[in-house]
């Protein structure tokens, strides 16, 4: 045997995967070329460049696993100069092996220490293996259908950010290599106006979305072509365990709302029916002040104008309104009750559009458009004119005697969109209310005047950016002024409470999906409220929850006065994770929020002579863990649960040393809830949620007849609320939508000095709402609403005592909140007709008839002068409101 070609060493076998083939290099045997004299192999050739053979296409069908043995001649430079098949696997495999082998490069072998040519045995193994892909994209596809018929829509343009495709004859579309992250999806076609939504796509996931688009039988005016219901399967993101969201399109068509989208909140499960004319939002048995209201990320003090007839945001600017009655995530806090999020409509590039609407109560106008693609704007203004109307149709100045709400509001928004996925918006929200009345009596002590002036202004900037990795960044600083002045005069007894606040807020949030199964969110929620307050009059006016009094009762004539300033500041970092497990069927959402806060009050003790006032401050730092879990047990059944701790800082009004307590700290609530959602059919779903809320450190009146100085209020109250709510909902399909909501709940409080629970002043055991709307075609639409609710609790008057100093009887009460106002039920009807003037303009007229049966609903209990007889103040009689809206 020629020593130069004897096997000198074993080379490590190399194996790799490539394409659909795999191979193995055999342990080569080395021998010198025959023509050279034999020498000693001092260094075997080392593979320097490996070339993979191609599994022949012609053989893929067979999937054969085989090998080709080769004899390679390697020159002194390490090049393969010849490759000869010595063990064939067939022509195709042999050729592939030879082609690859000729491209191999070696460190040359050495014989006797010098580079030399050698011949080696080499083997390629061929094996067809499954495709192994390292995914970098998502496969996003689906179908677009006509909502009313369920038939697929062909030729519809589907745009995923900058990518565009059209649906095929089966209505199908697909983006096989969509980038992960949050995307804007728009769907457009000749028969309808483009609609849009956002989708979050994860790497390696395949999405099968269904978009049901409401295609009108006849083209609609632009204002009517928005907010079609979109149902997305598989990619649905649930932000909250118990949130109920209503699109602007549906909300504005609900009877009894007067076309006001946000008014629909009153019809959602978990919301108590407010007394007519109050507009108070009582959610899951929490006080009205315990529910926070946001317009996107901007906190506003109220949702409705005084009287509750209108919301403070024009409906044309609203995309949806969402109510989270409890158990919400770590991104929000400072409220013991629910959360209302008003989502503003995204500003889009396009031609100018606008609207003008008017009814008996107010008039409004809106406009939106863009300058080029990058500068976009929208604005709206509304003003009430009921006082003007009444002044012309009545023979007396009724405004002097009845509380006619006078209000206006305006919203302005400007956005700069430098690129897709990034925007800077500057906006303003303004609202103002005035309401007053006077009741002049022959007895000056019975003459009453009441008035309230309130309003708020907000200026905000919002920066939003969608990152390339799918994450989002949102930063919203805002500045605002809140003002409220309640003034009344009962005879000689004044009651003034004025609060002027300056508010600085910042909300910054980041969301991202670092790995396939995990979404993260983190941010900062900061708010500083500086208030200057003035209060004069009785401690009993304005009344607090739990006060024993009857409707219309004059306040105590023991009076006092205070002026004070407060600063309530909080800076809350928060973080939240969403673990997607079991293929997305299970979501575990832990979160936490740290709420450090400081409350500074300018006066810690009662005013006394020339003594200068001395301030006080209190710092708190609260940890608020939150946790939610969702499980899609089946395609149609989802189970969910949540628990969370919430704190709420004291109200500036309560920090008076004279009327309240300047050392109050935050109140606390713990929410527990669990529920299930069942998708009964494509359009019909039912959701059920049970909840329990425990509240501690609530602010209550001192029960002492001689309280400690500066402790007219103390923080010893307890509260609890529990119940179940059910929502049976039919989405907008085939021109019909509606829902049935029912809440069974109990809300209770304790007063100072006792651990005994009594019903909350705004407790309603049963709240039932049924509403529906149907598009009759030819522009006609009809809707109805029926509401039933248990009456609010009231405390019975068991006898009366004559106050001989004032010659008035004062009530003596029985057990606290042990009787109720009779139940309320009312039916409302709405009929509308749309007239189309052109492709882009039209007119809608509507008749919204509240209490169509003219049912006399008791709203409050009233008594005669000596409380020996009682009766009820009744609410709205039949009230038709006619209005119209012109759009272009």
């Amino acid at each position, binding site marked *: 045997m020629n020593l130069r070609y004897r096997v000198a060493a074993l080379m490590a076998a190399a194996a790799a995967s490539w394409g659909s083939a795999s191979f193995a290099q055999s342990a080569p045997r080395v021998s010198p070329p025959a023509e050279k004299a034999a020498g000693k192999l001092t260094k075997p050739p080392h593979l320097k460049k490996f070339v993979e053979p191609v599994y022949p296409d012609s053989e893929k069908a067979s999937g054969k696993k085989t090998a080709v043995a080769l004899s390679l001649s390697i020159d002194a430079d390490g090049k393969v100069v010849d490759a000869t098949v010595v063990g064939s696997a067939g022509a195709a495999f042999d050729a592939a092996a030879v082609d690859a082998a000729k491209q191999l490069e070696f460190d040359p072998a050495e014989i006797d220490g010098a580079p030399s040519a050698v011949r080696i045995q080499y083997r390629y193994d061929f094996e067809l293996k499954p495709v192994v892909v390292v995914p970098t994209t998502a496969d996003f596809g689906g179908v677009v259908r006509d909502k009313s018929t369920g038939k697929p829509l062909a030729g519809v343009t589907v745009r995923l950010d900058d990518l565009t495709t059209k649906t095929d004859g089966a209505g199908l579309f697909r983006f096989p290599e969509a980038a992960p992250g949050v995307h804007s999806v728009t769907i457009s076609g000749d028969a309808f106006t483009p609609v849009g939504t956002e989708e979050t796509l994860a790497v390696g996931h395949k999405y099968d979305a269904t978009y049901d688009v409401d295609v009108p039988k006849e083209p609609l005016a632009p204002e009517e072509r928005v907010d079609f219901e979109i149902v997305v399967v598989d990619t649905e993101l649930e932000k909250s365990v118990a949130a109920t969201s209503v699109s602007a399109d549906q909300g504005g068509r609900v009877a009894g709302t007067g076309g006001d989208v946000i008014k629909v909140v009153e019809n959602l499960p978990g919301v108590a029916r407010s007394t007519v004319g109050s507009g108070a939002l009582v959610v899951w048995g929490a006080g009205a002040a315990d529910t926070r209201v946001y317009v996107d990320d901007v906190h506003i003090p109220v949702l409705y104008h005084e009287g509750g007839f209108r919301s403070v945001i024009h409906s044309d600017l609203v995309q949806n309104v969402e109510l989270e009655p409890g158990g919400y995530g770590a991104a929000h806090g400072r409220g013991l009750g629910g959360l209302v999020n008003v989502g503003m409509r995204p500003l889009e590039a396009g031609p100018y559009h606008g609207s003008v609407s008017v009814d008996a109560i107010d008039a409004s106008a809106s406009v939106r458009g863009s300058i080029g693609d990058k500068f976009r704007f929208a604005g709206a203004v509304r003003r009430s004119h009921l006082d003007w109307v009444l002044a012309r149709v009545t023979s007396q100045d009724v405004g002097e005697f009845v509380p006619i709400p006078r209000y206006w509001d305006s919203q302005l928004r400007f956005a700069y969109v430098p690129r897709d996925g990034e925007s800077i918006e500057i906006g303003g929200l303004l609202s103002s209310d005035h309401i007053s009345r006077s009741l002049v009596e022959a007895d000056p002590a019975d003459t009453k005047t009441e008035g309230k002036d309130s309003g708020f202004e907000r200026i905000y900037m919002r920066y939003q950016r969608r990152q390339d990795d799918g994450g989002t960044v949102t930063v919203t600083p805002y500045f605002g002024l809140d003002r409220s002045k309640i003034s009344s005069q009962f005879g000689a007894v004044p009651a003034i409470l004025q609060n002027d606040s300056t508010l600085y807020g910042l909300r910054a949030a980041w969301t991202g999906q670092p790995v396939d199964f995990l979404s993260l969110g983190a941010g900062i929620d900061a708010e500083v409220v500086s208030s200057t307050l003035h209060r004069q009059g009785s401690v009993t006016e304005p009344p607090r929850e739990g006060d024993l009094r009857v409707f219309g009762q004059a306040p105590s004539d023991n009076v006092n006065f205070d002026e004070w300033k407060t600063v309530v500041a909080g800076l809350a970092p928060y973080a939240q994770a969403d673990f997607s497990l079991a293929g997305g069927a299970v979501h575990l959402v832990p979160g936490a929020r740290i709420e450090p806060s400081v409350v500074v009050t300018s006066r810690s003790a009662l005013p006394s002579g020339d003594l200068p006032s001395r301030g006080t401050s209190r710092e708190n730092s609260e940890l608020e863990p939150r946790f939610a879990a969702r499980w899609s047990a089946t395609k149609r059944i989802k189970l969910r649960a949540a628990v969370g701790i919430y704190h709420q800082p004291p109200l500036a009004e309560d920090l008076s040393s004279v009327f309240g307590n300047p050392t109050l700290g935050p109140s606390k609530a713990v929410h527990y809830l669990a529920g299930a959602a069942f998708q009964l059919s494509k359009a019909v779903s039912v959701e059920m949620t049970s909840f329990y809320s425990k509240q501690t450190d609530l602010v209550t009146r001192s029960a002492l007849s001689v309280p400690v100085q500066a402790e007219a209020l103390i923080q010893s109250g307890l509260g609890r609320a529990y119940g179940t709510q059910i929502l049976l909902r039919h989405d907008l399909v085939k021109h019909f939508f509606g829902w049935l909501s029912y809440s069974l709940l109990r809300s209770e409080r304790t007063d100072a000095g006792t651990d005994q629970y009594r019903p909350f002043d705004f407790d309603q055991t049963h709240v039932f709402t049924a509403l529906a709307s149907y598009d009759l075609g030819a522009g006609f639409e009809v809707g109805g609403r029926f509401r039933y609710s248990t009456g609010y609790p009231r405390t019975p008057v068991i006898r009366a005592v004559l106050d001989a100093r004032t010659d008035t009887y004062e009530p003596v009460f029985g057990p606290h909140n042990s009787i109720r106002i009779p139940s309320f039920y009312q039916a409302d009807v709405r009929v509308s007709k749309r007239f189309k003037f052109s492709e882009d303009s039209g007119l809608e007229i509507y008749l919204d008839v509240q209490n169509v049966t003219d049912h006399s609903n008791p709203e409050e209990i009233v008594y005669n002068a000596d409380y020996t007889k009682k009766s009820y*103040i009744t609410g709205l009689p039949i009230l038709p409101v006619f209005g119209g809206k012109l759009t272009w």
Partner: protein
Amino acid sequence: MVTRTMRAVGLLLGSVLAFGCKPNIEGRPSLVDRSRVLAVQSVPAEQAPGDEAGVDYRALYAQVDDDGDPSKVEWAFCAIRKEIAVIGPAALECLAPSGKALAQLGDGADVHAVIDKDDCSVFGPSPPTPKEGEPASRPADPDTTGGYYQPVRLLVPTHEDPDYVVGVTRLACGLSGATQDQSIEYADRYRPNENPALAEIEVTHSNGKKESFPVSNDVPNVTVASRERITLRVTWAACPTTSTCGDGICGAGEYAMDRKVMGDDVAGCPDDCATPKGCTGSEPYVELDAVKRAIVSHREAMRVSWFGTDGSFDHDRTGRTEEEVGDAFSENDWVAPGSRGPVHMWMVLRDDRGGVGWTELTVDVGS
């Protein structure tokens, strides 16, 4: 053109916004259809706690049936302050026949009592000094005239549950939260309240005929036709609207001169600031204005409560505000019943510092 329909719609909206419909409920306080107490008078109307002279209390008891018996009225001082959020004249514990909160005074249509010397700390501006380590107590809030009151509870038996009535004596206490100078000024200028008194009753018949009756111990009598509408006017003393030297009222300028804090060009009247003198009409008084943080002058508002055993008054109560101090009278219309017979009337005059006075009138309703 404003049509009737438009007006109806407007009124409908107006009524809706006036919070639906407020019912009229039977039971007007001016109709005395059972025996009951109509007023309680403290003589004097205002007194310093602990004054050994004491206070005479008397009730205006309208006895219109056999159940009424003024001798069975039970009197008691309420000894505790009401809770801060309670609207009413006295602590709930005092609206009972007996209890720790009550200091019994006796039975009858009138009683005599001495007000406890510590009342200014219980009901007034001077809470007791806290013990070491204990927080200070909150002084009581004054009424709109700056007053504090000792409540006196009347238990009035009826054939069913007893009536409870609370009268008061205004307490001559100091001020809460005032400077030393303000306290001194207040002490010098403040004059205790005097019960008001009605001076004359004038009746104007539907035919324009007028009858006047000076108030005396005799109950005047008038005759009216059934269903006749008459106008009743009561008058009271016209107290001076501006302070002049010698009127016994310590005006601001007079006080200032008395304290020698103003220039010599201001005519002083120290005597007016040294001798208390009241008035049975709308008296001037001073109080500490909590908003202005200063001693300010006021006049009493006056109210008249009208009561009758039959017929119907237009108003249960009428009155004059502080700004109407020049009008020392008040009027009310009364419609006689359709049935014949006597109707007894009571007119009760109250000032807003807790003072009370009354008179009576008998009306014979003819055919």
